[in-house]
């Protein structure tokens, strides 16, 4: 049995686009990426179930012509789970927007720390003065933005903070 080529191509496209979106900064795009990846995996299950057949109901269909219901059952479970987790991710994106007026995935605190230490090293070799910036890593991490926030609503201090 050879798998349905259209489905295989669709899976490839979904996974490619999903991975690309997953690498974005904005949580909304990440969410869409996750949903596409999940759908790709679900289609993969359908391909895994073998050739399409008739409804697997005893009495209505002869046994030889039935499609395999087990992968469909698994896909249903996976769809339910993906739905729930997408809702959670959406809530998180909204909360992030409430707090920061953007929904970007921020840098690892550790990365900031290493970058700061490296910066101090550079200054130490060029300058005699090696003072730190006096800000905490968390503050710095919170401020990290990149090109994806072009056109985002301007940050209004105080608003949306609890």
């Amino acid at each position, binding site marked *: *049995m050879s798998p349905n080529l259209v489905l295989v191509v669709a899976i490839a496209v979904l996974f490619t686009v999903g991975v690309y979106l*997953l690498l974005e900064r904005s*949580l909304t795009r*990440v969410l869409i990426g*996750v949903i596409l*990846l*999940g759908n790709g*995996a*679900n289609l*993969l*299950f359908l*391909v*895994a*179930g*073998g*050739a399409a057949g008739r409804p*697997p109901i*005893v009495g209505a269909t002869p*046994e030889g012509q*039935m499609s*395999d*219901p*087990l*992968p*469909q*059952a*698994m896909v*249903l*479970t*996976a769809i*339910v*789970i993906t739905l*729930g*987790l997408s809702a*959670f*991710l959406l809530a*998180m994106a909204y*909360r*992030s927007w409430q*707090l*920061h007026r953007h929904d970007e*995935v*921020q840098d*690892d*605190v*550790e990365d900031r720390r290493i970058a700061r230490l490296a910066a101090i090293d550079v200054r130490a070799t060029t300058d005699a003065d090696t003072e730190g910036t006096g800000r905490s890593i*968390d503050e710095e*991490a*919170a401020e990290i933005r990149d090109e994806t926030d072009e056109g985002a609503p301007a940050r209004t201090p105080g608003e949306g903070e609890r």
Partner: protein
Amino acid sequence: MTDWTWLVPLPVVVPLSAAGLALALYRRPTIQRIVSVAALTIVVIVSAALLVLADDGPLVVDVGDWAAPVGINLIVDRLAALMLTVSATVTLCVLLYSLAQGQEDDEESAPISIFHPTYLVLTAGVANAFLSGDLFNIYVGFEILLAASFVLLTLGGTRERIRAGTIYVVMALLSSVLFLVALAATYAATGTVNLAQLAIRLPEIDPGVRLLLQVLLVLAFAIKAAVFPLSAWLPDSYPTAPAPVTAVFAGLLTKVGVYAIIRTQTLLFPEGRLDDVLMWAALATMVVAILGAVAQDDIKRLLSFTLVSHIGYMVFGIALSTDAGWTAAIYYVAHHITVQTALFLVVGLVERVGGSTSLTKLGGLARLAPVLAILFFVPAMNLAGIPPMSGFLGKLGLLEAGVQVGTPLAYVLVVGSVVTSLLTLYALVKAWNKAFWQVPEVERPPTRLPFGMVGPAAALIVFGLGLTVAAGPLYAYTERAAAALAERTPYVEAVLPDGKRGKGVSVDVTEQAASDAEHGDDEPEPEAAGVAPADEAAPAGTGAGG
């Protein structure tokens, strides 16, 4: 002999039902607390009973009485029972700790009404992953515990937690998709996701495809277990959660990943073709993460790095692929769950007294809270592997197993684990010295330590020491568990007594099952596996319900 199999589903069913009850009772905090504590106490008792019962052979339940390869089955063997008992004890202690914290603190920092139901769901998910005899049901178990962990990690939705939670959630979703892909590939190749049936069918398929499935599964589990280089998410996300949540995450979540690796590597892929790769990954995990710990200033992050580092020990034991290696790895998992959770609970207390988790700001706690100095010192030394504590015994077992194997790579790993152990000692002693002995920047007013928080932490430390006192019988138990894992037949025979079907009833197939199932086994095709389509719908209900 009495049939005790009705005990098997309880560790999943009781917390799940209690979670519903606790959610309904969100206006009555007192009753909510009673429900949670009672549910987890029942789980501890049941798990302990299963620990004893499983020693005579695995206990199997075909859920809904659907026969095994068609329906879902739950199975308790020695490995699952041990994991279940240790994790149940730890979750109960952490719950008691968080209850006391809830009474001491206000709603802001302490558990709110959603905490109890979520915590119980987490427990049910962990138990489900341990008990499941079906790869897809393990996935469902993972998703239950992950969904609960998302909520617990972002409790309160503060800036810092949302930042850390984002990374954690995206990583978890990615590993779930990988797991799904692995499941689909497994089903396409073998026509089943039942672990016992997979153990029979996998040797029959093409070795290349088998290797692909193995790599996919290991990859999905390694993200959850935080094996280097898939571990970078952990030290950044765990420390921001409330102390009890971090403690239970550190103790349990990564260990569920380790358990899944042990289960699939031993049962499904006994030829161990990934062992060399896993060895290198173990070495990198141990050394890189412990260097991260040495460089840390924040004590919670320091402990998160030691957590990742010590996952390397377990992977080392698994990758040795000998009875001795698995014995030591299983013992090490039990030891590490206890000691890492205890350390995080104590750090919660340190934060309370010292007002910070930064080692440069902390100081002079030895005078402020001498009890705390001991409470931190004992599990810290246990983690570093000072004799005669359980950390030492586990490491000794691993080193012995490594020397027995005797390949150059195994010797490299032996040296690596000794170095890691020394660096752990260095990092923890440095942390202890700074927190308890250095002169503090600002004198802190003495804080009363609530007994409700000290008690559970101390109980967990005593439980950890108990693993040393009871090391003889316990090590013998893990030895028997590892022997059964290596043998594989007890597990498979318990699920599929005649090699074809489980003990459950399958309506209208019982008569024709024998002839049809034979046909199905000859041709491991998806179509052939659909012997009894009416029955195959059973996992739909059970799976979706989960």
